[in-house]
C-alpha cells in the first residue's frame, strides 16, 4: 500500500489546561480529497495549523511527505511549505495587490522566472478557475465566490503536493458553492494533489470528498467514506451527519471558540 502523504500519530494538543485535540491519529492518502469535519470550535482548523507547522503538538507526531514537522528548522519549514498550498477562510487575498499580482506573489518570491513566464503561468491558473479577465482587478471588487477561486489559483500556483482548505465553501451562495466545489475536485485530479478540507458542510462534502474524519469533543469519533458515515449508527456521528439537536454532542460545550483563540 502507498505511504500516506500526511501521517498523524497520537496527537495531543492543549491550549493552557484545555485539551483541544486528544490522541488523534490520521492517515491521509496521496491523491485523495479528505474532509475533516466536526462542530464549530472542535479543533478542525487547529489540525490544519498543526499540518502546516504554525502550531506544534504537545504530544504525538505530524509527518508531512515523510518529514516530521516539529523537528524542522524555520528554513526547512518554509521549504516544506512550498509544497503545501493553503486556502484560508475568505481567501485572505492581499488587498494591496491586483488579482494577477496576488497569484504571482509566490512565483516572484520563490522562483527566478521572467515576466513572460510568470504571466503565462498566472494566466493559465486564472483561466483554469474561469477568471481569465479579472487579472487587473483589485480583490475588493470581487464577489465572495470569485475571491475564493482566485485564492484557489494562488494556492496551486507553485504546483504543491498538498492543498489545505479552511472552510472553502462557507458563506457562498449555492451556485458559487458548487462551482468552487467542482474546481477543488478538478484541480485535485488534474494536478495530482492531495486536498484536505476542513468544513462542517455535510451536504457538499457528500458530493466532493473521498474520505472523511469526524471530530467531536476533542476526539476522532469516526472515519470513512461519506457513504459509510451516512449509515454509521454511532449516536454522535448520526447526530452530526444528520444535524440533529438532540444527541451526545452538546451545542454549548462545543461552541467554545478554540479555533478563534488559536489566531
Amino acid at each position, binding site marked *: 500500500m502507498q505511504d500516506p502523504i500526511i501521517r498523524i500519530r497520537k496527537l495531543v494538543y492543549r491550549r493552557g489546561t484545555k485539551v483541544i485535540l486528544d490522541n488523534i491519529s490520521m492517515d491521509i492518502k496521496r491523491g485523495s480529497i479528505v474532509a475533516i469535519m466536526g462542530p464549530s470550535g472542535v479543533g478542525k482548523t487547529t489540525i490544519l495549523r498543526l499540518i502546516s507547522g504554525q502550531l506544534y503538538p504537545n504530544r504525538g507526531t505530524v509527518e508531512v511527505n515523510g518529514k516530521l514537522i516539529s523537528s524542522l528548522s524555520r528554513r526547512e519549514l518554509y521549504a516544506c*511549505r512550498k509544497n503545501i498550498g493553503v486556502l*484560508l477562510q475568505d481567501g485572505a487575498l*492581499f488587498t494591496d495587490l491586483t488579482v494577477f499580482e496576488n497569484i504571482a506573489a509566490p512565483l516572484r518570491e520563490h522562483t527566478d522566472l521572467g515576466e513572460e513566464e510568470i504571466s503565462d503561468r498566472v494566466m493559465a491558473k486564472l483561466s483554469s478557475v474561469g477568471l481569465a479577465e479579472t487579472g487587473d482587478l483589485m480583490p475588493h471588487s470581487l464577489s465572495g465566490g470569485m475571491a475564493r477561486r482566485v485564492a484557489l489559483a494562488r494556492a496551486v500556483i507553485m504546483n504543491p503536493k498538498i492543498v489545505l482548505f479552511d472552510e472553502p465553501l462557507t458563506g457562498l451562495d449555492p451556485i458559487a458553492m458548487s462551482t468552487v466545489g467542482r474546481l477543488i475536485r478538478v484541480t485535485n485530479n488534474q494536478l495530482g494533489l492531495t486536498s484536505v478540507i476542513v468544513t462542517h458542510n455535510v451536504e457538499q462534502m457528500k458530493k466532493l470528498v473521498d474520505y472523511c474524519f469526524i471530530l467531536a469533543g476533542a476526539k476522532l469519533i469516526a472515519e470513512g467514506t461519506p457513504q459509510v458515515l451516512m449509515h454509521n449508527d454511532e449516536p454522535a456521528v448520526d447526530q452530526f451527519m444528520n444535524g440533529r439537536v438532540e444527541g451526545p454532542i452538546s451545542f454549548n460545550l462545543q461552541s467554545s471558540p478554540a479555533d478563534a483563540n488559536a489566531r
Partner: protein
Amino acid sequence: MTKDRSKRRKLLAPIAETGHCGVFLVRMLGSIRLERELLISTLQQTYLIGARSLVIILISGFFVGMVLSLQAINALQQFGASDQVSLLVGKSLFRELGPVLTALLFAGRAGTSVAAEIGLMKATSQIEAMQLMAIDPVRRIALPRFLAGVISLPLLTAMFNAFAIMGAVVFSIGVMGLDPGIFWGKLQSGIYFSEDFVGGVWKSMVFGGIISLIAVFFGYYAKPTGEGVGTATTRTVVLSSVLVLIFDFIMTSFLL
C-alpha cells in the same frame, strides 16, 4: 505573590515592549536585500504615505508661516526690528518647527494609516497567508513601509518649510508691506545650509524612522480584531508624537 508578579510584569511591560520593538527593527533591517521588488514596493509606499500626505502638509505649512510672521512682526515691532522677521521665521522653521510639526502631522496622517492597514491585514489573515506561502511578511509588508517613512518625511519637511516661507512672504510683504529685498536678503544671509538645513533633514529622517517603526510594529502585533486595530492606531499616534518631541530635544542638544 501572584499579585506581586502581575504588578511587576505590568511595570516591566514597557521595557519588554521596547526590547521587542528593537528586535523587530533588527529583523526588519536584516531582511533588506537589494532587489527590484523592494525598490518598487518602497516607491509605491513612498507615494501612498508620502505624496498623499502632501496636501495637509502644504496647507499647514502655509498657515504656520503666516502665523509665525504675524507673531514675529508683532513682537519685533516693539524694538523697531521688524525687518528681521524672515530670519526669525527661517531659523525657527528650519531648525525646529519644520521637522517637528511635519513629523506630528505625518504621525497623524500616515502613521495611523500604516498601523491600521497592517493591523487589518492581520485581522483578515493576509499576514498568516503570507507565512503559509513561505513569504516573510516582515520583509514584504513592514520593510517597504518603514523605508518609505524614512524617505518621505525629510521631503515633506522640505515642502512644509517652503510653503511656510511662502506664507511668511504673503503676510510680511503682501499684508504688512515689508520690503521684499530686506526679507529675502536677511533670509539668505542668516540661514546656513549645513547648520540649519542639514540639521533639520537629519532630524526629520530620525523622526520618519521612529514614526514608521512604531506604526509597522504596532500594526504587525495588533490583536486581529476591530478593537485591536483601533488600539494599535491610537497607540501609534500617541507614542510616536511623544517620542518625536523627546528625540527632538535629545538631537537638538547634540546638534547645537
